[in-house]
């Protein structure tokens, strides 16, 4: 059965209300960024010991969500699972917007935003991951655009090639993002596992996001989606979560086992606000509870429970991004191993970071921008399928659902 795609009506009051709210958030965020760019970054919660904060956390989070969302369209384009063709277009569109959100988060975090749009192009440093990665990001957005164009113009013969390219490029994007932190001499950053760990957490968060997005969109627009399509994604999600947990165990086991990293490892796991985020947000709520839900026969077979588990995973991976960035900065740099450094005139030792109101608005502003673009896109382009059903052989009496008489 051929899938038909159409634009949504986009005339309801809820639609316009949603657009208005998102636009308002975008404007508020833009205003905050403008204010910070004039006043200085001291208006945020960052300081000389913690020069990166929640905007960078959100940037890498969005980038992760983007690559993960692309996996869903890859199910159709790369692995030939035609039952996922209905979701391919929204997945690619979402992936594109999420990466734009990542770039927006980075752009609004710069000390000199005016120079950010000129200098990196004129004086690119090919040895810097901050030059290599934006090239990967922009390339990724372009590939998504071409892929979406191919899908929108029904050039399905291009889909396998473009989907494969997009997926391979996404692995590169992710590994590069992980390397920003992993290829670094800081105690709680340095890790060759981080690029791979990033990819798996991206897959988990992206899959979870698509589950929530698909169920929400189809419900709100009163379109039918087969339960089995969502449930299969739930099974895929639980496999991703197991791999995420494995990487968490591997990284922390290394730090605790090797004497050199033990003190830092203990700080990471048991001291500070971030350890609550790690255990409560990532391990318990982000991995264990969703795994219990998804592996349980009853809850794992219920779309509502799978959506709930997915929401937890979306939050959990955000927590994972937070504990990648912040503990490495709040922990004291290991200048004199075995010695305690006490500042006489400046901050030394373990420090802290707290999110400022301004940063919250900046984050909401980016969310508002891509949310607005996503909703507008649903009305502007033929992204939504009329329905999402799994075609089953007509001779199969038991599970047929299409209503046609068996022949």
């Amino acid at each position, binding site marked *: 059965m051929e899938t038909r795609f159409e634009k949504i009506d986009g005339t309801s009051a809820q639609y316009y209300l949603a657009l208005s709210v998102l636009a308002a958030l975008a404007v508020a965020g833009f205003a905050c960024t403008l204010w910070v760019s004039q006043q200085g970054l001291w208006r945020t919660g960052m300081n000389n*010991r913690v020069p990166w904060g929640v905007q960078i956390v959100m940037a890498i989070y969005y980038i992760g969500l983007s690559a993960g969302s692309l996996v869903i369209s890859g199910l159709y384009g790369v692995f030939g699972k035609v039952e996922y063709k209905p979701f391919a277009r929204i997945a690619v569109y979402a992936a594109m917007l999420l990466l734009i959100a990542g770039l927006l988060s980075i752009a609004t975090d710069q000390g*000199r935003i005016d*120079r950010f749009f000129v200098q990196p192009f004129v004086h690119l*440093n090919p040895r810097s991951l901050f030059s290599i990665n934006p090239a990967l990001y922009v390339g990724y957005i372009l590939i998504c655009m071409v892929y979406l164009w191919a899908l929108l113009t029904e050039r399905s013969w291009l889909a396998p090639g473009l989907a494969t390219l997009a997926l391979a490029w996404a692995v590169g994007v992710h590994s590069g993002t992980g390397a*920003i932190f992993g290829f670094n*001499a800081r105690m709680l950053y340095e890790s060759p596992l981080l690029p791979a760990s990033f990819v798996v957490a991206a897959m988990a968060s992206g899959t979870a996001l698509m589950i929530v997005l698909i169920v929400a969109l189809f419900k709100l627009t009163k379109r039918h989606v087969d339960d089995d399509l969502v449930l299969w994604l739930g099974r895929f999600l639980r496999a991703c979560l197991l791999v995420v947990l494995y990487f968490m165990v591997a990284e922390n086991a290394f730090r605790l086992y090797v004497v050199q990293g033990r003190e830092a490892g203990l700080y990471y796991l048991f001291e500070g606000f971030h350890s609550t985020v790690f255990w409560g947000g990532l391990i318990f709520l982000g991995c264990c509870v969703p795994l219990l839900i998804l592996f349980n026969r009853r809850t794992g077979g219920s779309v509502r429970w799978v959506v709930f588990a997915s929401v937890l995973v979306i939050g959990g991976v955000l927590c994972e991004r937070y504990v990648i960035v912040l503990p490495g900065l709040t922990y004291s740099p290991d200048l004199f191993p*075995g010695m305690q450094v*006490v500042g006489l005139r400046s901050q030394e030792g373990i420090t802290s970071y707290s999110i400022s109101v301004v940063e919250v608005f900046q984050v909401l502003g980016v969310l508002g921008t891509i949310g607005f673009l996503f909703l507008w896109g649903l009305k502007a382009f033929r992204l939504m399928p009329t329905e999402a059903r799994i075609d089953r052989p007509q001779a199969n009496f038991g599970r047929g659902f299409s209503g046609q008489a068996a022949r």
Partner: protein
Amino acid sequence: MDRRDFLKTAGGGLLLGGSCAYAFRLLTASGTATPATAAASKRRWGMLIDLNKCRPDCTVCLEACREENNVAHHTDERWDVHWIRKVALHDTSGRPGVDKRVLLLCNHCDEPPCAQVCPVQATYKRDDGIVIVDPHRCIGCRYCMIACPYDARVFDFKESDDWPNKDLPKRSHGVAEACTLCAHRLDRSEKPACVEACDKINVGALLVGDLNDPDSEISRVISSNSVKRIREDLGTKPKVCYIGL
């Protein structure tokens, strides 16, 4: 081949060729160097700090640096900018006589991670070994601060009205900075401000000189003393060394 095909091929070829040329230019562009003389490029500036001479409660070098280089002072320590700072070390294992005061500043590494990660090559190593930031180019991404294992780099979070030395510009907010080893003074054959201030009070704990010259004072002191550098194991090849660390 008809006209349409020819135009398509030519256009595609032009685009491809242009992109390759641009990529080639970018990839072969090296970090900018100062217009240093040929003689200067053979020099390798380094610093020696004698902690045995350094007085524990003295701060003349810290103040001299601020005055000379317009290093902004903010009362809130979170945003206070400092190119050189003094810290106290306590031995956590309780060994006696190990507690000491240490001066920390940019190590002007020969393999600077900050220059490697700067996306716009605003941070670069000069031919004479000084690692310096171009404050007109810096976009304020703070990646250099993340990359520096010595926590030596600072960021201008806040604008400051302090401008004690009108001969030099002051930085706007939004850029990263670090000790320049008073490159502007070295280029005039003068001592850095911190060294001069320490010499003025007859302590002489700081010494800056040419590490490539075996007859320079710094080379002679290093060769006749046991000197240490901070975290040499990281492979950054820091050029600030310490006696008595």
